[in-house]
């Protein structure tokens, strides 16, 4: 049984709050977190990661990324990237974390080892938001220079093709004139739509398959957050004027709306600007964080507030809805795990390693989301595996040939046995048929005689 929890953080140092979405029960509050917008993510539900930007006078590169495990309120792992990171995002399996730096670079780490796999210059100005598409092959980034770019992870790790392409991005959209505040993707892999919001008071809908703008929606206020309806009928846009606008995606153009073209309606209760939005998995609940520190849960069908959480006095910068396995019934956990929680991965590295150093790939089995499942995979050392692979690759090697002959021999024996068996069966059947026939005629003649 999974529950959905709401987690929220703010740019001032008040920690991460956590509530159960459906019951409203407050969970643990994780301490010392001051995250910028889009700077909070849950790594496959295993632990929380958040980028930190603190104005400390001591060092210029004061940014860090912190991990919290679910069971402890303290920060467990701190990593210090080369520059302050604003948005962070992790893929659904929790294998990678991508972060956008203030210089416009995007960093790509492997979570389990903490290795910086790749770093590339993505934008002219700070990256403001990052998001994976639903099949996680594309990374979409928005930046303060108003551009939205689509990166294919295949291309980024394919050196040969990259050389050929001359530029890394798949698409670069320039129609926004001011900072991009949020980007969301729909379903459908590389054929999905993406929606981006910007400080130029517009939201734009793009097609990933065609690489062009599909729709431009002008709002009466700056939009800081968007959330896409799972059915992609509408999207919700949280404005600085405290309203959450509902803009139609699939409806025909409505010109009779009070707010403007494509805008169907608005949810309004906030006194201050909406800073972040998230929706539950079924899409019926919409969670919004606001400048005034409140988190409101809306029912999108009735358009009413059904719950209000109070996070802090200051603004809320991030709201996430994540699915979490119920941890209360943790009797099956091993005692050590129960005491310490699952061990968290090492901190993220600052610089990319030399490629030569990865001669022997470490084999890692990532911690699993369900801890009561036993790890029963057989262990083979990397060296043996590589040797075997090499052997298999070399078709002509004697060992491989021997194995082949061995296999063929056993097969032959088996088939000979098989033939024998079939023969025997045939014989039996024949016997049976003949006897049956003879018997039949016998009885017939017998009956004839009787008559």
């Amino acid at each position, binding site marked *: 049984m999974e529950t959905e929890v709401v987690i929220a953080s703010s740019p001032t140092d008040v920690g991460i709050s956590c509530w159960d979405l459906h019951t409203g029960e407050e969970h643990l509050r994780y301490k010392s977190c001051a995250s910028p917008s889009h700077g909070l993510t849950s790594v496959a539900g295993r632990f929380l990661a958040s980028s930190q930007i603190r104005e400390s006078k001591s060092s210029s590169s004061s940014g860090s990324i912190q991990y919290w495990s679910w069971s402890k309120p303290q920060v467990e792992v701190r990593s210090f990237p080369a520059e302050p990171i604003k948005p962070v995002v992790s893929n659904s399996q929790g294998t990678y974390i991508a972060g956008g730096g203030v210089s*416009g670079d995007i960093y790509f780490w492997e979570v389990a080892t903490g290795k910086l796999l790749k770093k590339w210059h993505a934008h002219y100005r700070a990256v403001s938001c990052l998001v994976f598409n639903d099949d996680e092959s594309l990374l979409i980034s928005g930046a303060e220079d108003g551009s939205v770019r689509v990166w294919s992870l295949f291309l980024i790790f394919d050196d040969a093709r990259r050389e050929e392409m001359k530029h890394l991005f798949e698409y670069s959209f320039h129609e926004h004139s001011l*900072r991009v505040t949020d980007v969301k993707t729909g379903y459908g892999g590389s054929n999905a*739509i993406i929606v981006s919001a910007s400080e130029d008071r517009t939201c734009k*809908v793009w097609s990933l398959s065609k690489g062009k703008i599909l*729709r431009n929606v002008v709002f009466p206020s700056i939009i800081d957050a968007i959330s896409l309806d799972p059915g992609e009928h509408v999207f919700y846009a949280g404005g600085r004027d405290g309203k959450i606008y509902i803009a139609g995606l699939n409806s025909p153009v409505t010109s009779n709306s009070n707010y403007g073209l494509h805008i169907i309606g608005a949810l309004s209760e906030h006194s201050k600007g909406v800073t972040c939005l998230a929706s539950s998995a079924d899409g019926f609940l919409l969670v919004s964080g606001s400048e005034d520190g409140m988190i409101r849960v809306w029912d999108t069908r009735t358009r009413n507030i059904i719950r209000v959480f109070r996070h802090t006095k200051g603004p809320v910068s991030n709201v996430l809805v994540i699915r979490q396995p119920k941890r209360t019934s943790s009797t099956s956990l091993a005692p050590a795990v129960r005491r310490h929680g699952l061990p968290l991965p090492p901190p993220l590295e600052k610089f990319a390693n030399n490629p030569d150093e990865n001669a022997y790939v470490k084999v890692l089995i990532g911690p699993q989301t369900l801890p009561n499942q036993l790890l029963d995979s057989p262990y083979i050392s990397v060296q043996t595996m590589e040797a075997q692979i090499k052997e298999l690759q070399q078709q002509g090697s004697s060992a491989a040939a021997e194995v082949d002959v061995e296999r063929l021999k056993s097969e032959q024996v088996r088939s000979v046995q098989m033939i024998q068996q079939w023969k025997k069966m045939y014989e039996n059947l024949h016997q049976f048929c003949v006897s049956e026939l003879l018997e039949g005629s016998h009885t017939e003649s017998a009956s004839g005689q009787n008559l």
Partner: protein
Amino acid sequence: MVKPKSQSKKSQKRGVDFKKIRRKIGRKLPPPKNATNTEIKSKAIVLPEQSIASEKAGLAVSKKGLTLKELLQQTSHHNIKVRKDALLGIRDILLKHPAELKLHKLAIIEKLRERIGDDDKLVRETLYQLFKSVIFPGCTKDNQGPLVSLMMAYIFSAMTHLAIDVRLMAFKFFDLVVQFHPPSFSLYAEKILQNYEDMLRKNKFLEDTSKLKNTLAGLIRCLSLLPSNEKEDHSAVKNDIPTHDILHAFEPEVAREPIGLTDISKKLKDLLPILVSCFQDFMPLVNSTPQPDLQSCDCMQFILQSIDLIVGFLVSGICGSEPGPQALPPCQKRDITAYDQFLSPMLLKKLWDVFPLNLVHLSGKDEDRIFMLNTVTAKIFLQLRNWVCSSSALLEKFLEFVESSLSTKIQSGKVFHEKHLLPLIPYIPKLAMQISSDWRSRILQAFTEVFKNSSPDSSMKLACLSAIEEMLAPERSWLYLHPSDPSLLDYQIAWMQDLPLLLILLDDKNPLCSKAVLRLLLCVGQATPVHSPFSQEFDTLQYSFGGFFSKQNENGICYGPFVRLAADIQELAICCLYYFSFMDSQFLQSLISCCLCDDLKPYMVLRILEVLHSAFRAGHIQFADYTSFLVTLLSRFHVYPVNICPAVKDDGKSNQRTFKYVTSIVCSFLSQIGDDSLVFQMLEEMIVDQICGETLMDNKCALLRLLITLDSRPTRLTAQSIVKISHVLAQYLTDIVSNVRQGDHEEKRRRYYLLPSFYLFSCSVLLHMYKDVKIRQILLTCNIEIGSLLQNLLNLLSSEGTNLTLEERHKIQTAYDQLRAITNNDAVGCP
């Protein structure tokens, strides 16, 4: 010409037919006296030509009384004159009875098409006119495909006619068809091109250059229909913002004509050498006579234009099934040679050999003409992809031409030159990228001169701007990949520095150009990396950019063009503000005086505030500058009906609502900055000073509101500022009472003004006021006003529409009580 003749004939006949012959046979009885005169008199009896054969009642007839059917039959009459008359008659009928055309459209065309290849020139000409002025305009709404296909067979046969005139006419007919129904070209392109090819091959027959010219004009029209223009595609993408109603719906089926583009490109390739040789045929003429005549010059120009179109089509690679050129930058095309193999270097070599056409001692006009030919040739050359591979001597020749023509343009400054240089400008970025650095600086130098010297609202400036855009905004082009060398950077900075001045020069006369400049500026702002020398250069632009908004001169404020431009351009300009990594106070000064301009729309003021707030959040404006910007805005905002008279009930002419909104926005922005108490501490003095200064009631109200937004309970106002405020507060209150009259309508507004003062009352201002003897005296003098104020206060409390919370209500109540107690004391104390 024709009509009067026939009329005269008729009149003669009539004279013969109806001649009265007098005969004297015998005497008649005199008529009885009561007889009725049955004679009918008329001045004339007109009988149209009669036809015994048919009954034409109810049928449409021409002037001569012939029906359409008869006329159609007559079109194939052996007599030329009858044929022509028949055509004219048809024209009559169709003009008089447009319905006939609709009904018998196909029949008419079926019959008339036979005349396309008519031997007589006059008949063809009449037919041409008939089609041009009557039939095609009448059929625009119908399905044109069948009509065209009916005609095409005959047009083709006429194109292969022996007589050259007939052929020429056939091309003219085809030209007409294409004008009428453009897709028809792509359907018949292959055949048509073949015919043109045959025609031009025999150009020896065409001694008459005017005929050649006509043919070529038709060819150019056809060729311009080829889907080759990259720029058109580009702009189409930009303009083509969401037209679909439903996002996830299937795309509407695009009716796309099946075009065998590969076949066309083969034909075009065949056509090319013929055109080139055709051009060469003119060479001896040009070289021999010092003064080439106008006709042949035009012909040469047309030939070059068609070559240009063909090369453009072949190079753009649309003929292949590759994705459109805008999807991939040019350098990314993998097989450059694949397209250029259509154009073997030998093909156009003859053309390059004669370039540049250089004639000695020419008069001005001829020089221009030759120059024009040269520019077109240069354009053809630059269009080719593989010109880099061509020999260096050839390349030099062209580069020299480009440079010299750009610089002669500056010297002469002729409109003519400018017009013909225009097509060369888009190739400058490509040139600058691919040639050696020596040549690059020369070309760029010439280009920069052209850019600086062209008049601000010319199309040259626009072309230059788009070229600069390509060279400045790196990721849209290929420069991104190459480490741009320092010389290029210098030029880029030089161009950029010119932009704000250009904006001011343009004023509001040429919004298109202003928009282009601003878009370029925005684009540059977006693309400048932070902390680079380039971004520093960009920041220095603001000193000249300030003049675009407003300028302070000795006799007041002079508003820049910004205030007068359209909203979308203003929006662009405001967006540019965000990208200055630092905004100095002087620039903010010019911005604020622009904001205070009455002509500026309230929406734009809000947008400026929003963008500045984002810029402040991003650290582009210093705290002190930003806050003083906001406070200045509030204290100097000009609210125009100063005294609200009850007569003006609608807010039509007042901007009070705007000001209220601005106030609330400023309050919310300031409260978002950070810790309220800290902000309050820093701003207190400034705001209090402004309140005490010479400000109007509305502005005072706004500032008080601001103070209260930032303040907390209990107040953190220092005693000093409380005293200061209390000096003005009394005046403020009396102002409210005297300005805002009684009445239901005014209730709301009065509450708006009073509310901040109540808050202040509740926080000890009152007591301070009371303690201060001086104030007490002032208070005493305006005792009556206070009395009415108290009355208002009571009204406010009792009014049912109040949306005050209980707490607020309570506070007001206590304030009221205190106030009353004091006034009572006063009344008692001083009799």
